[in-house]
């Protein structure tokens, strides 16, 4: 079982350069692992692929909840794109990270030459890759099945800002939960928040259909800010996107600051 010659440490000249790979290549390796693990967990694929797709198709065919004035797909696609961001950057990221923390995976990685910033970057990078695939799938289905086209007043820059700020806000919230709660607590909280954002986030049900106090609450939540910004950016609604983007930016700043300060690696 032993093979002493190959156990030799790297040459012992002094001072030593060390054997750590460059941070970028470690990070890319970790990003690949994050994506492989995401694809391997069936429960992830349900919440990030199946659920948004089913909601999009079902409520486009059965427009029970959407406003009568618009075509259902014009209302639904921006909302479901917001839900896709939530499913990946909040639900999937928080649950996976919380269990990795409880299994000591984060601790073990912390003792390797992969920098902590590299691990965070790999996780965010994997979230962005998955989200881009979600956008491609959902927009593709909307175009193919329902003939969706962006509205005349749309602005791709608003969509991109909403996408990035929304990811920041929900990933910050997800990492905050994963780094402070027990794994089971994170699992419950992530699913609970997902349901709240689905119902109050302007995803399948317009916020102005809610009773007054719930509508007021919903308007300051990041979910409705994200779906509102997408609706403006995709031309489904007119208006100034800035208030929604500012709400997202504020949530992003708050959650990522708290996550940075409170995250416990073990």
């Amino acid at each position: 079982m032993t093979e002493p010659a190959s156990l030799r440490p790297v040459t012992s000249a002094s001072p030593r350069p060390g054997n750590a790979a460059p941070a970028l290549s470690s990070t890319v390796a970790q990003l690949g692992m994050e994506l492989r693990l995401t694809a391997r967990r069936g429960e992830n694929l349900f919440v990030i692929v199946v659920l948004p797709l089913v909601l999009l198709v079902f409520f486009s065919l059965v427009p029970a909840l959407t406003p009568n004035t618009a075509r259902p797909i014009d209302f639904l696609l921006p909302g479901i794109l917001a839900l896709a961001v939530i499913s990946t950057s909040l639900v999937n990221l928080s649950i996976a990270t919380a269990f990795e923390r409880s299994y000591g995976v984060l601790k073990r990685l912390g003792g390797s030459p992969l920098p902590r910033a590299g691990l965070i970057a790999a996780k965010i990078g994997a979230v962005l890759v998955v989200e881009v695939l979600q956008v491609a799938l959902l927009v593709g289905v909307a175009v193919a099945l329902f003939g969706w086209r962006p509205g005349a007043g749309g602005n791709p820059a608003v969509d991109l800002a909403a996408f990035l700020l929304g990811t920041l806000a929900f990933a910050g919230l997800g990492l905050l939960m994963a780094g402070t709660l027990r794994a089971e607590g994170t699992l419950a909280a992530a699913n609970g928040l997902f349901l709240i954002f689905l119902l109050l986030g302007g995803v399948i049900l317009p916020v102005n259909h809610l009773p007054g106090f719930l509508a007021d609450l919903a308007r300051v939540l990041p979910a409705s800010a994200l779906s509102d910004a997408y609706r403006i950016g995709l031309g489904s609604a007119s208006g100034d996107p800035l208030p929604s983007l500012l709400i997202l930016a504020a949530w992003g700043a708050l959650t990522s600051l708290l996550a940075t300060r409170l995250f416990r690696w073990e």
Partner: protein
Amino acid sequence: MTATAGGMPAAVRVSGLRKRYGGRPVVDGLTFSVAAGVIFAILGPNGAGKTTTVEILEGYRRPDEGEVRVLGLDPARAGAELRGRVGLMLQDGGIYPQARPREILRLYARFYRDPRDPDALLEQVGLADVAATRYKVLSGGQKQRLGLALALLGRPEVAILDEPTAGMDPAAKAATREMIGALRNAGTTVLLTTHELADVERMADRIAIIDRGRIVAAGSASELAAGAAPRIRFQLERALDDPDRSGLTAALGAGSIRDDGAPGRYLVDGLDSSPALLATLAGWCAARGLLIAELRTTGATLEERYLALTGDEAQHD
């Protein structure tokens, strides 16, 4: 960087280390240094502060007091560069349950400029057959061997191994000890913790016995054993009741009678074996018509010394 007597720089240096949890001292003033190229074992019972000590050396915790240096650097502050020179084996694997051994070694290999070959390493630690099996269904010993492989992957100058043989069957333990010995022979400094005397007897060059966060003895295995006085162990036909126990203790003059693992089995604690002491014990039993079923004076062994120092029942494999 400090130098040891031989002029070689110390690979690990710990001075005046203290760590408390909730006001309770877990590490209570440890000072030791590990010369480059040796296997240094921290031996002690569970809860003695071994894991806390190595986790400070691994950079996971900061000391409350004192200073630690690994390869001359403070592990809590040194970054990826030091982690590229130190190989770690943690007590709880810390591997993704859905990942496979080959996949994990290939991932970690990409964190190093010049890693060992993951496939050769799998072969060496005896995991080639389960290279594509999910981590969560590996046996405890297989998980340990994967942990060992991860520690060796980056050709470390210093390997810190927390209980490397725990949970392994005897064959895997022997193979692991052989592998750690080969690692040392190739120039890596090894610092390991264990509560198994067999580990230190068979591979450690230097041993520090710790108990309740303090070093109670240090040296090579033979130096430590030489410091142990012979002691009396005996088995009676029946267990002593409390009055008899105190009566016997009084008759022996000092020391105390300790239970030794089974009813009726005792150990004379705090008194060295002597002809007079044996006669007193035998006379006391004869006066009460008590048969001594077995009587033995144990010689100077590392086990005796360890038991005397820690009050722990040693765990042999």
